[in-house]
């Protein structure tokens, strides 16, 4: 027996038989199993209970079913393609889509989807940058309105290529037999492949004529060069070799010829080195991006450009007629003096499309010795080579019924030429190769849908001897076919339907072997083949004197209209790429619209304000547009941007539809060339109930005398490298310990205000890298653009004379403005003008504004005001100096945004993805392919801001870790720094003493914006030095 002396009951004490047996069981009393399994009423569900259980069950299931689990499909590779590793991007050398002539870029491809253009840093001649439109044009690949394949008129349905080819060939053959001609309209193609295919096509159809057509031409330069030295070319301009640049209305940093390359070249001499920097004079009528960067900017009427050129020619010692009017005060004299001193390191460019003007420019450059130095006519520019005279001749003959068929390749004349539509109607067979239904293809009888450039092989020659090779980066999204293959197919070549890429590849390879030679694969890898010859000086056969004589009689117009291109939208070919429209114009900061820009004196004289509607009438038509008052614009000039008023396909919705007005009809063709300066105009105010509201991202134009942008002149800088930085600031004492960054990395950014031109390419690059939503015009009107990076632009003007102003107390009460003082306060500038005695010229000061650009993004402050106020710690500081956003944690109190002194935080006011209202590219499956998978797409109600491209930092770190090495600072950079054509932005690790950023941080010009707040930003700006007295 056990030692237990206690017993449970008498049964145990007695050790009855019953007890012994039951005690052996686990449950001595047995379980009421029968009761449970029996069918008696206690447990059987009766009718009421059944209904209860049933009701509960139904309710529970219904509730559970309400929460629909989204079905997400992820399909793994059954066979992994070579080189494709999910999560690892591939880079292919290619050509920028928006630059027809060819511009080397890299295409970043993730899992078979091109997601971003990046500059090709190997192609040093082109400068290693990219522009805003170049980035935006990526969306044309993922445009849901792209055509599905070969189509014929009437039935807008894709049909088989073999059947389609038969129809096309029949139509072309009919043309040949009826004795009519076939016209091929190209965009002045620099594509060796397309040009070869055209040759092949001509072999079969000898009645073919090739007509080059481009909406914007530089025929004046070509014609003048033909006369001057026998070559109808646009030369290559080397701004990097120029010490003195004088531009007459040429917006070479924004839109003129090849601005990305010019940007990088120009910026090389803009940062003072050894006490020197280049000097830039700009004579212009509208306020252009280029003008905003000039050291000396002189307002000029473009219709008076000839007089200015004559004056300059005379000052340089050329023999000219003396009746030339006095122009531009001392500025021509000063420019001439500096040009003379610079000699062959001088460069004069002119935006006029008039042959005579360009002849005189040639003469001036010849006198300076610019040819062979700053101008290269040997390795000349081959792009944008169309001459409008050819197209005009084509139109006349087309109307007369000469052509039986027309094939348009990368050209859209019905949009950009007012007479093209009527002429095209006279041609029975109209074959288009467009990839969407543009204005020309909508009228076509046959559409041989092209491949998107990113789906195709090509070799382009933008400069003589410089070739840009591109390769497909994605398999064709739709059933298009390369134009070259189509042309070959129609001329009897074999282009197998299933094998067309292979045909294009073989064909391109053959063209490469024939025209260039060498290793095709190597060329594909690098993207650029250079095969140039040394620059020689052409021999001139016309004198400047004769040119000046011819121009002496030209009289400027009383009022003139300037048709210009906007930096973001350019000629309008990529009208359906919303990023380009949301990018604020670098000067006016207007998004989405075109408008009539007018000068301040005109606005005052005609009682016009921004938003008033005006009707502008020229000889060739009229246009009604809202007005934008533009400081810096010359009196009596009016500007309208081309590239708007596109008739986009029906599927296009939102602000892209009916955007702006088409001003191509106003281009003056009366003198036999496209003159973008139109005289003899009339302006009428149109009464409207409401003022038109622009989607404008910056509404206050002056800096209010605040120490935000520091400036100094070159002389001051040479005497004292700290010039401009001697600002009295209180000494800050911090209550907190500083962060310790001694271990690991310490990320920082430096922005050189001298190099930055404000071109805004960084804005678009940043948006694409970081999946920043496009919000549309209406949201920009409500001041809700989402850009993580913006460029602030401020105007000021110099007081010519002393004035006592009576100001309101908000602007500091009565003020005395000394002669020569820079006025930076909006109200002071207005009061200064208003205090003038002569009412007619009171606001002329606004013609002479000085401009400053400043990129502004999250400053990643060490003592960040945003971090302390977030109630849920959604924004925090990293050990590497980054100010981080945790989107998942953000509840959207917006307190951080309010407390940010730089106002760089952006809030998701709506759900921008999956939203009909914001259907720009986030809302459809095709558009979503452009999303960067490394960056979260933010949901509604969270805050976002610049992250210093933390995803790039992270992937570079991981790559270094995998390879078991230390990460190099200059191994990667942020999206903005990477794309900057002028290298104004430098990003890196301050802990790495050898890095560029560490050197820049030690530079005397460096300063922090708003450092008196003690927030300790990680972005440093460098004083802007202007090369003037």
């Amino acid at each position, binding site marked *: 027996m056990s030692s237990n002396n206690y017993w449970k009951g008498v049964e145990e004490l007695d050790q009855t038989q019953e007890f012994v047996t039951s005690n052996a069981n686990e449950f001595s009393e047995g379980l009421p199993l029968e009761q449970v399994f029996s069918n008696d009423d206690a447990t059987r569900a009766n009718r009421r209970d059944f209904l209860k259980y049933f009701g509960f069950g139904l309710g529970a299931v219904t509730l559970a079913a309400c929460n629909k689990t989204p079905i997400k499909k992820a399909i793994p590779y059954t066979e992994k393609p070579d080189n494709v590793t999910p999560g690892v991007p591939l880079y292919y050398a290619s050509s920028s889509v928006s630059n027809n002539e060819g511009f080397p870029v890299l295409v970043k491809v993730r899992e078979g989807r091109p997601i971003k253009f990046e500059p090709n840093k190997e192609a040093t001649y082109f400068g290693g940058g990219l522009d805003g439109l170049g980035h935006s044009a990526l969306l044309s690949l993922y445009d849901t309105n792209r055509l599905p394949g070969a189509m014929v008129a009437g039935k807008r349905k894709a049909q088989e290529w073999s059947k389609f080819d038969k129809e096309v060939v029949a139509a072309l053959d009919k043309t040949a037999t009826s004795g009519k001609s076939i016209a091929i309209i190209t965009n002045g193609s620099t594509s060796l492949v397309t040009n070869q295919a055209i040759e092949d096509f001509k072999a079969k159809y000898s009645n073919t004529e090739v007509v080059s057509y481009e909406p914007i031409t530089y025929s004046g330069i070509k014609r003048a060069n033909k006369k001057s030295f026998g070559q109808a070319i646009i030369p290559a301009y080397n701004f990097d070799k120029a010490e003195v640049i004088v531009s007459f209305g040429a917006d070479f940093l924004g839109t003129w010829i090849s601005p990305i390359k010019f940007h990088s070249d120009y910026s090389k001499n803009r940062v003072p080195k050894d006490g020197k920097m280049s000097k830039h004079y700009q004579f212009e009528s509208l306020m252009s991006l280029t003008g905003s960067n000039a050291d000396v900017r002189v307002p000029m009427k473009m219709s008076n450009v000839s007089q200015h050129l004559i004056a300059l020619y005379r000052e340089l010692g050329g023999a000219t007629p003396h009746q030339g009017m006095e122009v531009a005060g001392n500025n021509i004299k000063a420019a001439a003096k500096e040009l003379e001193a610079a000699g062959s390191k001088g460069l004069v460019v002119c935006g006029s499309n008039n042959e005579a003007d360009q002849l005189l420019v040639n003469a001036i450059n010849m006198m300076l010795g610019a040819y062979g130095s700053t101008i290269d006519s040997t390795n000349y520019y081959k792009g944008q080579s169309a001459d409008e005279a050819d197209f005009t001749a084509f139109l006349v003959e087309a109307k007369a019924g000469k052509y039986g068929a027309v094939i348009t390749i990368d050209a859209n004349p019905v949009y950009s030429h007012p007479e093209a539509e009527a002429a095209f109607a006279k041609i029975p067979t109209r074959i288009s190769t467009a990839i969407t239904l543009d204005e020309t293809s909508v009228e076509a009888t046959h559409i041989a849908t092209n491949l998107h450039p990113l789906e195709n092989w090509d070799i382009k020659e933008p400069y003589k001897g410089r070739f840009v090779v591109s390769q497909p980066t994605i398999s064709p999204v739709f059933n298009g076919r390369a134009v070259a293959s189509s042309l070959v197919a129609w001329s009897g070549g074999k282009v197998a339907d299933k094998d067309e890429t292979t045909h294009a590849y073989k064909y391109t390879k053959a063209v490469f072997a024939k025209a260039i030679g060498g290793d095709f694969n190597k060329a594909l890898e690098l993207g650029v083949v250079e095969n140039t010859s040394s620059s020689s000086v052409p021999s001139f056969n016309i004198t400047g004197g004769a040119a000046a004589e011819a121009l002496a009689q030209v009289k400027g117009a009383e009022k003139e209209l300037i048709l210009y291109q906007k930096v973001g939208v350019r000629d309008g070919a990529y009208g359906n790429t919303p990023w380009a429209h949301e990018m604020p114009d670098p000067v006016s900061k207007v998004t989405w619209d075109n408008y009539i820009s007018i000068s301040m004196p005109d606005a005052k004289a005609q009682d016009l304000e921004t938003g008033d509607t005006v009707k502008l009438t020229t000889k060739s038509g009229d246009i009604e547009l809202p007005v934008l008052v533009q400081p810096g614009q010359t009196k009596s000039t009016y500007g309208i941007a081309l590239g708007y008023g596109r008739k986009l396909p029906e599927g296009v919705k939102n602000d892209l539809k009916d955007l702006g007005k088409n001003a191509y009809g106003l281009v003056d063709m009366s003198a036999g060339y496209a003159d973008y300066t139109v005289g003899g105009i009339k302006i009428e105010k149109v009464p409207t109930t409401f003022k038109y509201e622009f989607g404008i991202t910056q509404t206050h134009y002056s800096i209010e005398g605040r120490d935000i942008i520091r400036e100094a002149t070159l002389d001051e800088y040479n005497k004292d490298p700290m010039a401009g930085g001697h600002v009295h600031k209180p000494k800050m004492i911090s209550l907190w310990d500083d962060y310790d960054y001694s271990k690991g990395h310490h990320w920082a950014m430096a922005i050189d205000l001298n190099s930055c031109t404000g071109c805004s390419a960084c804005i678009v690059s940043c948006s694409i890298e970081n999946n920043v939503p496009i919000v549309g015009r209406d949201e920009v009107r409500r001041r809700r653009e989402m850009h993580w990076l913006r460029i602030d632009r401020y105007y000021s003007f110099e007081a010519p004379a002393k004035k006592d102003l009576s100001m309101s107390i908000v*602007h500091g009460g009565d003020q005395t403005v000394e002669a020569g003082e820079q006025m930076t306060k909006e109200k002071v500038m207005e009061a200064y003008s208003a205090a003038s005695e002569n009412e007619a010229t009171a606001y002329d000061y606004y013609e002479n504004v000085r401009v400053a650009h400043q990129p502004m993004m999250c400053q990643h402050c060490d003592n960040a005001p945003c971090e302390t106020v977030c109630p849920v710690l959604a924004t925090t500081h990293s050990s590497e100096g980054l100010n981080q956003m945790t989107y998942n944690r953000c509840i959207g109190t917006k*307190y951080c945004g309010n407390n940010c002194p730089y106002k760089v935080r952006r809030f998701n006011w709506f759900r921008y993805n999956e939203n009909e209202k914001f259907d720009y590219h986030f809302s459809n499956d095709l558009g979503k392919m452009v999303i960067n998978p490394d960056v979260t797409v933010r949901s509604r109600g969270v805050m976002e801001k610049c992250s210093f491209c933390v995803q790039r930092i992270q992937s570079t770190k991981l790559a270094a870790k995998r390879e078991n090495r230390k990460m190099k600072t200059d191994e990667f950079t942020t999206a903005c720094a990477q794309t900057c054509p002028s290298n104004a932005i430098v990003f890196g690790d301050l802990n790495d003493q050898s890095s560029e950023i560490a050197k820049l941080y030690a530079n005397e010009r460096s300063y922090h914006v708003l450092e008196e707040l003690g927030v300790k930003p990680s972005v440093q700006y460098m004083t802007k030095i202007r090369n003037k007295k």
Partner: protein
Amino acid sequence: MYSADIRQPLVTGGKTYSDVTADICRPIENKPTSSWWVGFITGVVLLMVLAGTLAWTVWEGIGTWNTNKSVMWGWDITNFVFWVGIGHAGTLISAVLLLFRQKWRMSINRSAEAMTIFAVFCAAIFPLFHMGRVWLGFWPLPLPNAFGSLWVNFNSPLLWDVFAISTYLSVSLVFWYLGLIPDIATVRDRATTKARKFWYGFFAMGWNGSAKSWGRYEVVALILAGISTPLVLSVHTIVSMDFATSVIPGWHTTIFPPYFVAGAIFSGFGMVLTLLLIARHVMNYEAYITSEHLEAMCKVILLTGSVVGLAYITEFVIAAYSGYEYEQYAFANRMFGPYAWAYWTMMFCNLMAPQVFWFKWSRTTPWFIFVISIVVNIGMWFERFVIIVTSLHRDFLPSSWVMYHATWVEVGIFLGTFGLFFTCFFLFAKFLPVINMAEVKTILKDKE
């Protein structure tokens, strides 16, 4: 107890104890009057506006408001501070005046406290719905969670707000309910219907009116008054820190805590006057809410209005003296910038208008007081608008300077909160004794 003959009686009209009970229980025991229906239905309609506009905001996003990249707080936080401010008078009257033994408070404290609670309800809507993701509105609460080290930021004034307002609301509710218990018991005892007997009996919590009960009641009331008194100061101090601890010129000001508290009392009394003047007229309570009450409250308004006005001027002088250009610009911009109309509306309503209360006629003429009380309410709304919007719309970098105008949704939400407020208030007036019967009976024979 001795009382001087020159003092005015606290309750006029020669009311007896039973008159008091009958008068005050009348609205509860009778069918609602037509003016009650008008007020109540108006309130409910506005409440529907609130429901609609809030639903629209949550459905579409805060984008339906007009707040933007620079002015990220607009009418929402303006309304929040406005309602919190109004919520101040109740506790001040019941707690602070109780401690100071100001017996005149007895006939107005009940409705003032009710007003406080309803105003805090209205206020709470704004910080909740101004969140981008309102469905995560519980995240600022320091709740233990399964996400590891995920915690709230005790540095953030918004978190302090959460604590300050929830404390204030709970203490005010308890204080109010405690005061109601003897009166609810009175209604229970007079009840003629079963339902009334049950519900009032339930909420009376077995009150039997014994000396012991009264003794405990007095002690608890005193303790709660002691707890509430610092809250009167703390809530608006903390609300003011939302702004004072930031870096934005116009917000970053050490004067804010006392200035906001004074402003809150000012606006609270303004609203109490508005409501009582209506209630007294509609319910014929002139005998209980006498012109003595009105006069006393007018004096408080005169005092706090002048304190607020002094703060406005001090702020301006300090900015001018600071030598700090951003601060100087911010204040100059308030007076003469694009929102000058709002600034001068505020100055007129808060500083100048209350000065009429130096004159006895103004303090004793109900319709005139009513007009001024509305002016004070408007002025105090504009004060918050001026502080929030004019500071944000032009801060450091002129490139980000913007204008801000509310949309119909924002206006709708603001009007809607009046709906919530009045719906609650009319229900209160119908179902609970508006005047503290038990306390008023103690001063029936008393003088000021």
